[in-house]
Structure formats: structure tokens, C-alpha cells
């Protein structure tokens, strides 16, 4: 039998093109509204995509101390977006990004366990450690956590999550990607076989962004 591919869609308010919000067909006022995300997820589900993926950032994009006015907003809170679409979809996986650097493990576990129940077992957590150093200034820190510490902390989160879930015989998918790529993925690689399935991500300009997932133990992000 021919090997089959996984397909995901990586959404962004308006789209990943930097000026997508200016397109004449784009109703830019919709990008904070429920229907925009519901419609997008339903289209992806119509196309039988495996997952609907929402990235995250924890600081506004700035230039010379001011927010950059010519680009659209960051994603709204990813857990909120995927929760919103859970009730209008049946099958598509719902993957939200949440940072291990600026959250507590108990809170993350509660959020994804809830999402997993409400969605009938479709939740996925994209584990990131938050690359942008400016985020630290929004969390009572004068500087970002040193990189190796960030990844150690991330590793312990995933370990905690795994043991918590296995006690209940229940394991939502843990996806690692974005800034968390190599270290977390490789550290978790052997253990994560069978749970961490994401890999290779390609972003194609001019088309709906498509995330192609292959079973792998290492994660690569390629933008081209």
C-alpha cells in the first residue's frame, strides 16, 4: 500500500502573507470573529485535513518601541481559537501552541485535558519555549531564560504531562515545533516515538499554508 501523508493547516489572522489583510476580498474586520475561525476549520475539515494548527507569540510586534501598524495582529490566544472551532467540527485535530516558559504545567495539563474532552479526543499541544526575548518583559522578568534552561524546563513539562496521562491510560498527541524544535525534539525523540509525530513543516507562499507531517523523531521548520 502506498504510504499516505498527513496534512495540517497552519492558520494566521488574515493569512501568512504580510499584506493579506489588505486584499480586496479580505474582510479584515472578521479576523477577530468566531465565524472566521469556524469557517476556516470547516473548510479544512471538508478537505479531510488531519489538523488545524494555531501558533503563538507572547509580545506585540514592535519597531522602535511602537507596535508595527502595517501588519495584522498576532493570533489571538491559540487555545481559545481551537476551542471555538471544536463545536463546529467533528474530526479534525485541534493543535494549539502554549509556551512552557511562561506557563505552569498544571494549568497546561488542565487546558488540554479539557479541550481533549470537549473535542472528543482531538486536542494537540504544540510545545514551544518562546524564542522572542521581549516576551520576558511581559512576565516580570528582566531577561529571557537562558536557552538550555528553557529546554530543560520544557522537557520536564512534557515528562510530567506524559506520566500524568499514562496513569489514566490516556495520551493526547504532543507535537513539538517552532522554536522548540531540535533540542526538545531530540531530547524527547526516543521516548516520544509513537506520541510525537510531527515533523517536517513547509510553508508555501501564495497558497494556503500547508503543514506536512511525517513520522520523525526530529523536527525541522523550513520556510521557502
Amino acid at each position, binding site marked *: 500500500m502506498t504510504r499516505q501523508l498527513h496534512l495540517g493547516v497552519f492558520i494566521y489572522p488574515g493569512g501568512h502573507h504580510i499584506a493579506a489583510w*489588505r486584499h480586496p476580498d479580505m474582510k479584515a474586520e472578521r479576523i477577530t470573529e*468566531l465565524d472566521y475561525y*469556524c469557517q476556516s476549520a470547516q473548510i479544512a475539515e471538508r478537505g479531510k485535513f488531519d489538523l488545524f494548527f494555531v501558533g503563538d507569540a507572547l509580545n506585540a510586534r514592535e519597531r522602535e518601541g511602537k507596535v508595527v*501598524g502595517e501588519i495584522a495582529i498576532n493570533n489571538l490566544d491559540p487555545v481559545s481559537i481551537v476551542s471555538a472551532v471544536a463545536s463546529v467540527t467533528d474530526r479534525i485535530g485541534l493543535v494549539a501552541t502554549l509556551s512552557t516558559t*511562561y506557563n505552569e504545567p498544571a494549568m497546561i495539563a488542565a487546558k488540554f485535558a479539557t479541550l481533549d474532552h*470537549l473535542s472528543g479526543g482531538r486536542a494537540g499541544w504544540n510545545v514551544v519555549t518562546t524564542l522572542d526575548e521581549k516576551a520576558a518583559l511581559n512576565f516580570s522578568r528582566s531577561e529571557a531564560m537562558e536557552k538550555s534552561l528553557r529546554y530543560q524546563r520544557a522537557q520536564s513539562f512534557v515528562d510530567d504531562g506524559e506520566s500524568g496521562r499514562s496513569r489514566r491510560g490516556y495520551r493526547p498527541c504532543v507535537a513539538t515545533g517552532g522554536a522548540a524544535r531540535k533540542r526538545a525534539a531530540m531530547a524527547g525523540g526516543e521516548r516520544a516515538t509513537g506520541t510525537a509525530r510531527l515533523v517536517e513543516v513547509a510553508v508555501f507562499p501564495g497558497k494556503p499554508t500547508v503543514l506536512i507531517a511525517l513520522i520523525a523523531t526530529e523536527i525541522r521548520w523550513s520556510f521557502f
Partner: protein
Amino acid sequence: VRTAERGGIDAILFDGQWGPSTAFNLDPIPLIVALAECGTRIGLGGAIEIDHAEPFNIARSFAAADHLTAGRSSLIAASGAVRPGDFGHAPVRTIAERQSRAAECIAVVRKLWDSWEDEAILLDKPNGRFSDPDRVHPIHHAGPFFTVRGPLNAPRPLQGNPPIIQRDASPEGLALARQTADVFIAPAADPATLAAIRQALGERPRLLATTPFAGAPDAFAARLAELAPLCDGFDLVPGMLPVDLDTIADEVVPFLRERGLRPAGYEGKTLREHFHLARPRSQFAA
């Protein structure tokens, strides 16, 4: 949610406490946003243990929730429920310290919600101006518990500030609510307790009394009508869900409507409007 909306209830509040007293709780942010599709008018409140949460995360979650629910979200700011071991960072705090931290946390959340003025989003396609950088403000908060630069990376919630609900009726909790709550839920509905709480709260926060739903619908509704002068409304606690909610929607609410204590239907669109709370201007607006 659909039953409650049929009955014209202002809001459903998911107020489970974090801690050992309950087997499990659904986390409020997945929950209230997942329910957004189930109604168009009813408010949806979710509890956050603010003792263990970062104000940036709270502000960001509820900004999203408020947009996705079209202005129907509410933050129930819970404090004091600690299950040892759940939160690695949490040092033991005195009650006074905990209250100071909670007050500062809520102040920072409001600053972050206000960091984008209402007029900040321009959507000016010809000139390529999505937002007006002069109307988006770093908050530069520096206090004893939090240092937060801001701005939030989300537009201002539709309600400006989603209503903040509290229910800690200890002296410290009431002092905090007087300063920071939009709505306070009293733990009981006896006249003496309500009068004492109203005095401690001041006139500003809306005061709801808690009444378990019990007895015949007519008698229950008559009791609410009798208590009505002492508070601004009620937090009804159905013993059995959703059966009791049907009775509340179909028998108790009509009784209150006949007596002019409830409007015939929703008069506003947002939860602030249901509570008759004015929409605040951003504290950073000129």
C-alpha cells in the same frame, strides 16, 4: 447554555474551584469559548485562580474569549484555593500578601486590556495601516509583585474590560472586591448577610445573592421576589442539571417577568450591558 438562553438568564458561570474538593474541573478557557456557538446573547463566565496565573496570560486569554464570544465573556477572579504541589513556583503567602498580589494582578490585567485603545484598529487598506501605533501603549507596570511592559498582543476586548466577578466574602476578599470587582456573588441570601456585604462592598459592584434551587417553582420565585430589594440579582444553583434549568427557564423566569423583575428578553448584546455596567474607556486614551 441553550436552555439558560431560552430563559433569558444573564450568564452561565463556570466557577469550579481548583483544588482537592472536586474530582475534576473543566478548564474555563477551553470551556467558555467552546460554548460560544451555543448561544448569541448569554454571558459566559470562567474562573481563573489568579494566585497562580500571570496577568499577561489572563488578559490575553480573555481578550480572545471576549472577541470570540462577541462580548459575552466574564473573568471570575478566584483566589485562595491552593492544592500543595500543583504549582511549583508558588511560595506560601499570608492572606494580606495574597490579596495585594490579587489586586495588583487585576490592575495589570485591566491595563493590558486597555493597552489598545478602541480606535487603535484602523483597517485602512489603501494606506496600509492596520493599526495606529500611537494608540497602542506599553503599560510599563512596575509593582511589588509584577513587572509588565506590554502592550498586549491582542486588540481591546469588545466589552473594553470583560466584567470581573468575585465571590470571596472574607473581610479581605470584600476589600479586594470593593476595589476591583464589577460583580460580587454573595455566598447566601439572608437579609443580614446581604446588608453587611453591601456595606462592605460599597455601591459600585453589582451584588448577586446565591440561592440553591429548591422547592416548588412558584414558591421559589416568590422568595426571589421578596429578596429582590436587597440585591441586584441572583446566582441560581440548579441541584440537577439540566432538569432544574428547564424549570427555572420555563416557570421561575416567567413569574419574575410578570412582576416586572426581569425584562421580556435580552435588552443588550454584551454581558456588561446585561449587568447594566457602562463600557469603560481605555485608561490610556487621551
